[in-house]
């Protein structure tokens, strides 16, 4: 799983330009899928056929980044955020474009740190003027944080885009490890544009029309110095989501996940996230409503160039997802009125 996570995390894929990640995943799972297709938003659907009910499991491919809005006559690039990225964290960071062009972000003269906003930032890719702009670096092109994947001591991993390539890696491993016959149909959806407001998940859920929704994403933790209070720590197992700002998970789906973890002795935590949302925020209100739940991978420093997760959490999460997807899910009709 570490190798899969490494290549996925290092791949370029800001919201709206997930192509490289999509091609990589397609290649990784093609031998294990019954059907693979894409939609107009760029989400990738990987189906394993089976009888009803239909379960949609999603993880988002996109990561935060920046977009070029203007190239001035001196060759400096003006940028705007793609997703929830802080201008403070960008100063001095290296960025990378799809074609490999590199650059760094700095700011105009400011008196105080708090003056720093997007209008003060610029990206320098080494141009002398706007005449030598390369083909791949034009208005509308996006760049991502550029940091290599590192294995840390204590079985932890650090990389950009753990949010949510950790989820993607987990889904890829799960697809490979499922038994040849399944008790139900599963569609793994690698979604686009989650960071811009769960957009890929919205159209994907409409298209697939699942009976149940599951998402795998990272979640914030409360175990760092003077962190905001939150009952999730790194290394204590995957978190079963109770709620975030986008969803209250269906109690029956949550129970299924918790009971599966307990039955198989998988450590888990319960996640009550005050900020943030994830794919099932869009999935659970698609069409006539879809009972949904989520497994979260605890992650420190989310939306920075150095997001840290614990390998054990990832492995336990994979185990939990695998067991949950081979369990018997209730007939969706039984849930009405619950």
């Amino acid at each position, binding site marked *: 799983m570490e190798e899969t996570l490494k290549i996925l995390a290092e791949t370029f894929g800001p919201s709206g330009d997930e192509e490289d990640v999509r091609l990589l995943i397609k290649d990784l799972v093609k031998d294990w899928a019954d059907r693979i297709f894409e939609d107009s938003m760029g989400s990738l659907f990987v189906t394993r056929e089976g009888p009803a009910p239909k379960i949609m499991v999603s993880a988002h491919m996109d990561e935060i980044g920046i977009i070029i809005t203007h190239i001035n006559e001196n060759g400096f690039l*003006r940028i705007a955020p793609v997703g929830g990225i802080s201008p403070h964290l960008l100063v001095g960071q290296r960025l990378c474009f799809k074609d490999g062009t590199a650059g760094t972000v700095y700011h105009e003269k400011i008196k105080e740190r708090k003056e720093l906003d997007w209008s003060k930032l610029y990206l320098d890719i080494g141009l002398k003027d706007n005449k030598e702009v390369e083909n791949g670096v034009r208005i509308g092109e996006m760049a991502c944080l550029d940091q290599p994947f590192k294995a840390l001591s204590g079985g932890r991993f650090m990389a950009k885009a753990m949010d949510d390539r950790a989820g993607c890696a987990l889904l890829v491993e799960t697809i490979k490890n499922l038994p040849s016959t399944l008790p139900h149909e599963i569609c793994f959806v690698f979604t686009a544009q989650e960071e811009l407001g769960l957009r890929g998940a919205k159209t994907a859920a409409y298209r697939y029309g699942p009976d149940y929704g599951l998402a795998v994403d990272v979640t914030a933790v409360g175990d760092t110095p003077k962190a905001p209070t939150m009952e999730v720590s790194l290394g204590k197992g995957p978190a079963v989501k109770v709620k975030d700002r986008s969803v209250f998970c269906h109690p029956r789906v949550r129970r299924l996940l918790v009971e599966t973890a307990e039955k198989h002795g998988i450590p888990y935590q319960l996640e009550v996230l005050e900020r943030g949302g994830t794919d099932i925020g869009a999935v659970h209100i698609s069409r006539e409503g879809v009972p949904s739940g989520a497994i979260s991978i605890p992650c420190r420093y989310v939306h920075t160039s150095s997001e840290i997760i614990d390998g054990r959490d990832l492995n336990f999460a994979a185990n939990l997802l695998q067991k949950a997807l081979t369990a018997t899910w209730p007939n969706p009709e039984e849930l009405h009125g619950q």
Partner: protein
Amino acid sequence: MLAELANLSGVSGNERAVRHFLQNRLKGTRVSSTVDTMGNLLVRKGAGSSGRRVMLSAHMDEVGLMVTAIQNSGLLKFKPVGGIDSRMLVAKRLRIGDKGLPGVIGAKPVHLQEKDEQKKPFREESLFIDAGFAGREEAEKHIKPGDYVSFDSACTALGEGYFRGKAFDDRAGCLILLELLLENNGFNFDAAFTVQEEVGTRGAEVAAYRLLPQKALVVETTAAGDTPETERDAVSTSLGKGPAISIMDRTIMVSREMREELAKAAEKAGVPYQYRRLTGAGTEGGAISLSREGVKTAVVSVPCRYIHSPHSVVKESDINDTLSLVRTWLEYQQ
């Protein structure tokens, strides 16, 4: 025709006058149209194949106000409908209710303001509408809470090739769609003249669901920043530089493929184009692109100075160039 369209009152939720104008203009032409439950005017041009079609959208509604209470004094309290800068409201002429009664936004005159009051702009709470009634009873004969209020400002030609007026956002887009429906171009497409864009792109959401387009282009009006206080690097769009192609806004990330189609269409049509540098603010692009299974959508806009005010300014050549771009793009879709 821009003047006729812009002069109509059509605050979000009350687009009837604009819809009637468009319906009248389309009478006797070979297009079929329907009005949905929200009030969107959906017009189909050409029979074409039975497959999914191309959708163009422009919103009929404009920002404005709504009367919320009649005070004992006969003065009226109001709330904005859509994104309005309350600092620019004072002393503006208004048309109130279905009959378009004249009124003005009143505030405490400078003589009666304390020193520190003079330094602050008026806030919405300290403003009111004066429609010339001596008390509540008199006012109630003509006005009721919920009445729509629009700016009263007639579209006027300025200088060489400019227009001043209200509601160019998005009557300029309506004009472009109307021209494409009226002219003899042989195109097949659906035109959605939508409602309630300014309060959250509501009309577009149901219009796109109903039309189930294969691809969509939103024809909008966007803020121009080519005025002295804006630094050059930060100018979102400029007047006279042609249609503005969006790369991203709060609601949509426009695909590279769609942006390139538009840029190519501009080049083919021989008109200048620019990119909209602002990545904030929303358009119908979001609602349409996320409709059902997703729709490839792009946004092109006429740049407009002092947008969302009673006196915004557009350049005629930008409207014509946007029309040319959209026409050429449509031609490629046939």
